[in-house]
């Protein structure tokens, strides 16, 4: 993906690291990561990984809530890492977010309309109240709701699925180019997830909004994602088209991960017993080498020497960071 020329990229993340504490010896939450989201077509890019893999750090970096320790994040020519308050505000007209907890995203003190009022007022979206109300109606209709049903209600009077769809409507009303969706369905009932994922696909196809879809759930990523990037302990383990990666995982960690997703088929149960290595080994921030060494069935001494680069392993930019795939 690095071959995409810089001018073509909407969001251009280049060699970004985020280290908490001492820059030399602190905790590496995200290690030397690059990603380009193209300008000319809308995509759902999935960032997947377990807790502590660095995916939420990436969300916070892209939203400008934290700044990178190394590297640059550029959006439409704006250096997000060094933007001031005014630049940040105009940046947030282009980049919006939906968070994991659909209840916590609402101030319990206000009615639902407050979340829409804030954006209309601060971003000057509407000239008058009537127009503002029309825009809200329009955005809510896009997620299958109507203003009369929800705007005058308090957040606790809505269901989890409704709350999250309203958050999608709010993000959509700003008409951004990119929405960071941080685990948007993990706190929503299984039977309601589809309604939210469907909104994401609709916004991509009809409104041309790209998504950075951050999740630990590979099956939804497979269903709606275009591209997928899998993280392990702050490093990128594997990337490629969602269908390629999930149908044909290459990195040993990704293979284990995909094998562990419970399949809805009682005839196809987990085979073989897996063991987790000791805690201490997992927790040490490894300065160099592949982070998966302590758990990897294919580990060899060379794995601990340096973090493997991303080797091509398949079509459409399918790459994995594992020396099993190093060219001879």
């Amino acid at each position, binding site marked *: 993906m690095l071959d995409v020329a810089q001018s073509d990229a909407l969001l251009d993340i280049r060699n970004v690291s985020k280290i908490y504490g001492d820059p030399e010896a602190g905790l590496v939450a995200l290690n030397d990561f690059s990603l380009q989201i193209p300008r000319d077509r809308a995509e759902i890019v999935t960032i997947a990984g377990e807790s502590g893999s660095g995916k939420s750090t990436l969300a916070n970096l892209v939203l400008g809530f934290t700044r990178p320790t190394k590297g640059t994040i550029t959006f439409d020519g704006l250096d997000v890492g060094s933007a001031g308050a005014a630049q940040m505000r105009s940046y947030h007209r282009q980049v919006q977010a939906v968070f994991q907890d659909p209840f916590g995203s609402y101030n319990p003190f206000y009615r639902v309309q407050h979340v829409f009022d804030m954006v209309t007022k601060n971003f000057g979206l509407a000239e008058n109240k009537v127009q503002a109300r029309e825009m809200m109606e329009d955005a809510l209709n896009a997620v299958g709701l109507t203003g009369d049903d929800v705007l005058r209600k308090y957040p606790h009077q809505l269901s989890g699925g409704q709350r999250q769809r309203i958050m999608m409507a709010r993000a959509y009303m700003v008409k951004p180019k990119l929405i960071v969706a941080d685990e948007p369905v993990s706190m929503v009932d*299984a*039977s309601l997830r*589809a*309604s939210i994922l469907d909104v994401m696909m609709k916004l991509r196809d009809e409104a041309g909004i790209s998504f950075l879809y951050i999740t630990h759930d590979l*099956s*939804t990523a497979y269903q709606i994602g275009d591209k997928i990037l899998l993280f392990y302990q702050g490093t990128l383990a594997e990337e490629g088209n969602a269908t390629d990666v999930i149908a044909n995982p290459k990195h040993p960690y990704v293979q284990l991960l995909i094998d562990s997703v419970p399949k809805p088929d009682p005839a196809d149960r*987990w085979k073989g017993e897996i063991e*987790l290595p000791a805690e201490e080994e997992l927790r040490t921030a490894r300065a160099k080498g592949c982070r998966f060494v302590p758990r990897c069935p294919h580990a060899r001494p060379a794995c601990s020497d340096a973090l493997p680069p991303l080797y091509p392993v398949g079509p459409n930019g399918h790459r994995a960071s594992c020396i099993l795939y190093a060219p001879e």
Partner: protein
Amino acid sequence: MSDPVLKVRNLSVFYATPTGDVRATEEASFDLHPGETLGLVGESGSGKTTATSGILRMVSSPGRIVSGSVELDGVDLLKLSDEEMRRMRWTKLALIPQGAMNSLNPTMKISAQISDVIETHTGQPATRERVLELFQMVGLPERIYGMYPHELSGGMKQRVCIAMAIALNPSVIIADEATSALDVVVQRVVAQTMAKVRDALGVSMIMIGHDMGLMAQMVDRVAVMYAGRIVEIATVADMFARPAHPYSQILIDSVPSLTERQPLRITGGITHDPRNPPEGCIFQLRCPYAQEVCRQPQEMREIRPGQEVACIRAEELEREDA
């Protein structure tokens, strides 16, 4: 099949609210056989947790057990005195509550918390050997004996909770969403541990969850709950091969596949007011196949040996999922 170890009949638990009773669990009936794992599955608000707190008689005000019987080894738990019931918990019926791993006491060592459970119910402090034996059963290393909860990962803490549940050799363990807050690989390890413990001790388990995929991997029989009612009970093979109730079908469909891209199937949540359920079938307001006949009360009925369903049109709607 052998006699069931746990027989639940017509158990109803209601919660009082200013505008009427919420029928959290209504007329729940099922059996649990020795050594069997029963999955109790449904979305939030379906009454699965309430049903188990009814079984354990841990319903707190403003909730109350309205009717029913819960027989454990032939003894009706709902007729016991509070003191007798207190003795039953842990020794016969153990619970791994939702979020148990986050309710471990942060100021007490793991070993002390396990031996506390044993001491409260037997009057004897647990020996180091016994605690280590429990550790070994759930696959925890000896060296965590002197550790505190914050020194362990989520998966290990969850296994500590399993160790506490089996500490007094209960005959039934109820696990409420025991693996749901964990990463998939860790979830697999914890699920593996539970299966191992179940086989080693021959205990019966009730696993509460919302993930049909996990049910397929873990349980022998599945009971599907919707809005306080059990709508279908079947062996896991039947449930996935021939789901009869439309709601079971929706639940199975909502597990996204990893092998084939399908269009998303969109459904709504529970739509009726839980204080005022519709006459007749509980699912009629969301059911894509609802007809006039669905306004009649729906009783659980056996459509084939071991598969019971509360749907009058089950035979025509049943589908082969292969």
